[in-house]
């Protein structure tokens, strides 16, 4: 258990910069998720903390130890890889006990501890099997067992759930969170799946092109994305980002389509962000937007509306769907106070335009 700090960390391969000026603090016992599209440097950051990649400049500390130039074995971290990296020639018991061999733990002790860990993960019946005789979910647990047996300072997870099927992924996610809460070990978790990041993290770090675009609690990031990139990346379905001219309570698109947005403390050319849940279609025969597609998801439906050539996405409660079918003409309005306003050129969030119910300053949560 320890505080982990990245201070001005850079990583380049030859002349290509992969991670630049990463400053990050993982509070003791926190669960931090690095999330971003592929190639954004999230895995590289994790591997630098593990010691599997060298750091070009900057320092990484775990607790009060500077680990920047230490070998992986001296860092006291445990890692779960995407492919689990179980040792194929060892049984489940030996796999879990393997890290204790490094610390010269007597064999009998090590195996006994492995049995206990396996018991706590529900692997007791599989102890003598080889990894290839296990299902994906079981392999995953073995990998977690091997990570927790040593009670490391930091847990590292590199997309550990992406090889599981959807149902198992959700179950394992919950379980992972319970284990982390129980052990209270600082966690750094890498994923490309924003939903996973939202549900798992105490703090999420959205990365883009080797930089931390935004750091904050999932709710901060969701409610006050610092720029259009974060806004589009976090949340599903994706936030509608509309270029338009804001004046009064209306945003006018270049096509002439007018969207009612409520009172907003900004005007002029902007990029307007509206989450699909906050965009309400109302049936109106004289409106100039038309429902293009309705995708029913059970309790909700995703409605794609063609607003004079611009496709906008709305999420509508199934109960309010009556009358809305493909081809229906609808008027669109954003829920008052629910719009995000970004600079049309830079994509940065305009300060002071946050949702009223979560009044967080976008600038402060950026690092």
């Amino acid at each position, binding site marked *: 258990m320890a505080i982990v700090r990245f201070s001005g960390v850079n990583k380049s391969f030859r002349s290509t910069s992969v991670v630049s000026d990463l400053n990050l603090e993982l509070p003791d016992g926190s669960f931090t998720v690095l999330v971003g599209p592929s190639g954004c440097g999230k895995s590289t950051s994790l591997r630098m903390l593990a010691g599997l990649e060298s750091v070009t400049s900057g320092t990484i500390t775990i607790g009060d130890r500077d680990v920047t130039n230490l070998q992986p*074995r001296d860092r006291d971290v445990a890692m779960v*890889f995407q492919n689990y990296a179980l*040792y194929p020639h060892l049984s489940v018991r030996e796999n879990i006990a393997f890290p204790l061999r490094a*610390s010269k733990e007597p064999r009998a002790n090590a195996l006994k501890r492995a049995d206990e860990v396996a018991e706590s993960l529900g692997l007791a019946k599989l102890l003598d099997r080889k990894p290839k005789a296990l299902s994906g979910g079981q392999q995953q647990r073995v990998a977690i067992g091997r990570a927790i047996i040593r009670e490391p300072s930091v847990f590292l997870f590199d997309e550990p759930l992406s090889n599981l099927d959807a149902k198992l992924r959700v179950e394992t996610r919950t379980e992972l969170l319970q284990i982390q809460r129980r052990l209270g070990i600082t966690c750094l978790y890498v994923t490309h799946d924003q939903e996973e990041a939202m549900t798992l993290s105490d703090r999420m770090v959205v990365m883009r092109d080797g930089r931390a675009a935004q750091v904050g609690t999932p709710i901060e990031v969701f409610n006050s994305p610092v720029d259009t990139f974060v806004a589009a990346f976090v949340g599903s379905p994706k936030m509608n980002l509309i270029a338009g001219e804001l004046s009064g309570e209306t945003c006018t698109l270049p096509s002439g389509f007018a969207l009612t947005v409520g009172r907003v403390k900004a005007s002029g050319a902007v990029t307007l962000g509206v989450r699909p849940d906050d965009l309400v279609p109302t049936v109106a025969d004289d409106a100039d937007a038309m429902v293009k597609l309705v995708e029913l998801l059970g309790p909700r439906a995703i409605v794609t509306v063609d607003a004079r050539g611009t496709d906008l996405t709305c999420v509508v409660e199934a109960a309010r769907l009556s009358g809305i079918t493909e081809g229906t003409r609808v008027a669109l309005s954003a829920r008052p106070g629910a719009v995000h306003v970004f600079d049309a050129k830079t994509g940065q969030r305009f300060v002071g335009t946050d949702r009223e119910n979560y009044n967080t300053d976008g600038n402060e949560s950026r690092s």
Partner: protein
Amino acid sequence: MKNSRTLTIFRVALLWAAGISVLFPVVWIALASVKTPEQLNDPFLFSFAPTLDGWRNVLSSGILAAAGRSAIVAVTTVGISVVVGSMGAYAIARYRAGGTATRFGMLAAQVLPPAVLVFPFLTMAYALRLNDTLVPVIFAHLSFVLPVVTWFLIGFFEAVPRSLEEQAQVDGFTRFQAFRLVVLPQVFPGMGAAAIFGFTLSWNDLFYGLILAPGKAAILPVAIAGFNTFRGVQIGSMSAAILIAVVPVVVASFFIQRRLVQGISGGAVKF
């Protein structure tokens, strides 16, 4: 239906033809080893009273000692090759050590006629007063067994996921421990095959032994060649000696045939 039957007959016939052409020399040698010199003049003679003269002659000629020396040479060569070769193959597979040039250039010794290499070996052996001992033979055999073993193992090492050794490093082991405890066990089958393959290469080699240790330290192929005397070839005794030499190779090939294909294709296909 009729078509496929013709095809089947053709296939079986082909297999028999192949089988006979491979086995015929062995059968002929087996028969020759129990014939008298007079009977040997009639190659179509299949029923005769067998004699063990050839075998007695061979066994009293020190062939077993020669086989023992061959075994020492082959085992030492293979032992060194597997230890050194596995480390080399690992470095080439993981780090592209030496680039493409090394990877394919290391088989250059196979392309050169052995005659090019044997004289340097002989002069060095003379200078060190090691001629007609097993030492230069072992070194000469290393010159072709080690590259083949290394090359053979590259494909096996490439098949081991990198994350496996990274995991071992994070789990608290040094790089060498990760190699020894985690990577090596994954390639054990390949190493076994490489060892047996290397053993047969060394065991079958006549040329280097003949030049570097022709006398009291003669290895098995040299001893077999010794039955070609100034009074003519002693076919009976030679056949018996050949059978002694062939048995280990046949047994070995039986055990490694599948890995052999895997090793050769694994090394050849992946660039």
